[in-house]
């Protein structure tokens, strides 16, 4: 399949597809970070994660609409306001869901899976009723338009670059929060030994709620970033949920670095193969490859060695 192309052409194909893969990578990382916290740390399967992301995307869309009609002069900066709003809204919904539903189900992980699937159906239908079944998109502010020409053959769109930088920043922030802050230490303590953590005075119920809400909040920010590179529809979230779960499991559920590495591998493999094969076959091969590796190495790429 490579024979038809000359060497420099191949190089630029790889570079361009590599970059196209990077925007998929950003989506994966942003979605997977939230899941890695919720699933990796708490062991809760949140099937509604995609819908939390889409909630963030719709929040961003609404903010953009408000900015456009009320203060068009400030439109360039709407994104940062929208991102914060998206975080707040999804965080609040996450906390509510945890309180109403998840906290009753911690000892039954398979049942959380079903309950959150139900939640995702309800949210999807709500979006469809409120925003309509058609996909909506935001118009990008001027500074995000255009692209940077690296060489004659390779061009990098600015919005993609922005989203990628954003996702890495958020990944770094999550790392600091989980592994360098007092709160992160509490979370890890509760995960490792709940009774002991409670004995030293950690309010484990509160830690659970904030952790779940935080994971949802990150999904909201992910949705906000998602509007930069794609349009949003009621079922957009569901498209990514299986892939993202594979990303998290493939990376090793409790390792942030593993999550990022596996998001990178999967997105690059898929986007490079997409150029040579049809899109669907590329996806089939990538997923088969991941499932195959998981069958051989169920603990994922970067397994944390902990004594149980």
């Amino acid at each position: 399949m490579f024979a038809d192309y000359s060497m420099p052409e191949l190089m630029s194909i790889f570079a361009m597809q590599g970059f196209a893969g990077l925007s998929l990578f950003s989506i994966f990382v942003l979605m997977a970070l939230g899941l890695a916290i919720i699933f990796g740390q708490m062991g809760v399967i949140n099937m509604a994660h995609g819908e939390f992301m889409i909630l963030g995307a719709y929040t961003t869309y609404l903010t953009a609409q408000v900015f456009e009609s009320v203060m068009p002069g400030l439109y360039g900066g709407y994104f940062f306001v929208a991102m914060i709003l998206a975080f707040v809204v999804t965080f609040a919904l996450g906390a509510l869901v945890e309180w109403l539903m998840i906290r009753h189900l911690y000892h039954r992980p398979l049942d959380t899976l079903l309950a959150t699937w139900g939640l995702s159906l309800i949210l999807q239908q709500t979006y469809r009723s409120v925003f309509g079944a058609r996909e909506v998109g935001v118009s990008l502010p001027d500074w995000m338009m255009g692209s940077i020409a690296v060489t004659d053959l390779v061009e990098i769109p600015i919005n993609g670059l922005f989203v990628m930088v954003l996702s890495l920043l958020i990944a770094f922030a999550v790392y600091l929060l989980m592994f360098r802050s007092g709160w992160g230490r509490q979370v890890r303590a509760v995960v490792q030994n709940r009774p002991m953590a409670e004995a030293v005075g950690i309010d484990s119920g509160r830690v659970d709620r904030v952790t779940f809400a935080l994971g949802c909040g990150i999904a909201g920010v992910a949705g906000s970033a998602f509007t930069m590179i794609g349009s949003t529809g009621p079922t957009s979230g569901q498209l990514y949920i299986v892939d993202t779960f594979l990303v998290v499991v493939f990376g090793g559920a409790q390792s942030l670095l593993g999550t990022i590495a596996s998001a990178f591998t999967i997105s690059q493999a898929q986007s490079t193969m997409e150029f040579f094969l049809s899109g669907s076959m590329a996806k089939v091969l990538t997923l088969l490859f991941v499932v195959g590796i998981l069958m051989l190495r169920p603990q994922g790429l970067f397994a944390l060695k902990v004594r149980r």
Partner: protein
Amino acid sequence: MKANMFIEWLKSREGIYYLLLALLLVVVFPLALDSFRLNMVGKYLTYAFAALGLVLCWGRSGILSLGQGIFFGLGGYCMAMFLKLEASSPENTAIQSTPGIPDFMDWNQLTALPWFWEPFHSFSFTLIAVLAVPALLAFIIAVAMFKRRVGGVYFAIITQAIAAILTILIIGQQGFTGGVNGITDLRTLMGWDIRTDEAKTLLYFVCVGMLFVCLIVGAWVMRSKLGRILLAMRDQEDRVRFSGYDVASFKIFVFCLAAMFAGIGGAMFTLQVGFMSPSFVGIVPSIEMVILCAVGGRNSLLGAIYGALIVNAAKTFFSESFPELWLYGLGVLFIAVVLAFPDGLAGLYRRYVMPLESKLPAMLRRGNAEAQTLPVEEAK
């Protein structure tokens, strides 16, 4: 001796429930419903096959599979391939550029039948394939996962991913599989037109018969020592392992059995509905099969059948009258069945109706008498 035990069992309370279900499916529905509605009930019952498998696999053994749609689809596609080949005889497809191959292959510029379609000219091969293909795939998945002691949510996610892969594959490979439309326009089974009302009614009874075969196999598994080991494995896996049982083999067995049930369901679906498409294979139908089982009661085989009937009837009703409400309803059902009624209808029945039954012993005795007359005649 055996017959006596069977009669004893039928006289028991459990036997009466089975008889009541048989009465409902074999007598009440065919009498009360027109042939269109009866065909729909038949369609609902095909999902009950998958739900039965899930009772054994999830309720009894604690293995949640989010991929029963895979096996349902494989069974259905095997049957559809046979029927499609029969429908695309050279005479029927004379207008195509390559006569004798299915129409969608011709549209996709295929000029010869792919090799994996060839054996489906034979009906006996198809019947074996309906059971063997799902079982084989289930066996591969199960060996790979359970031998490495992967279970719980990981297993659920992997099976879901495989369901996604299979859907994308079927949709992507249009020329070989009929793509997103699936395999349509199926006409005859060994020269017998399956589209007439009489054929559909007969197929309904075949479906009910197969369902009872699966039900009895399932009940036998649950009552046997094997069933008790499965239960022990669900609750204390390590302890079963330390007692010397090979836990993985039991899990592989029950997962393959569930896959075969789903495969039979899929084949019956194709026969009754007249087509098969990827929309019955993927993530959404697979997880809906879990909810059928959960609504009926994840530990109750009979519950799974009632669950399949009730949920699908509700789905049809809401989709016909209030389409936008159905997803809300389904969502609430998922949450409610997990939070409030983890044992589903069977649990509610046990808690609220059974005590009433004991208060009315006279009624129960009459029920017993009725139950006695039927099988004795059969035994003679």
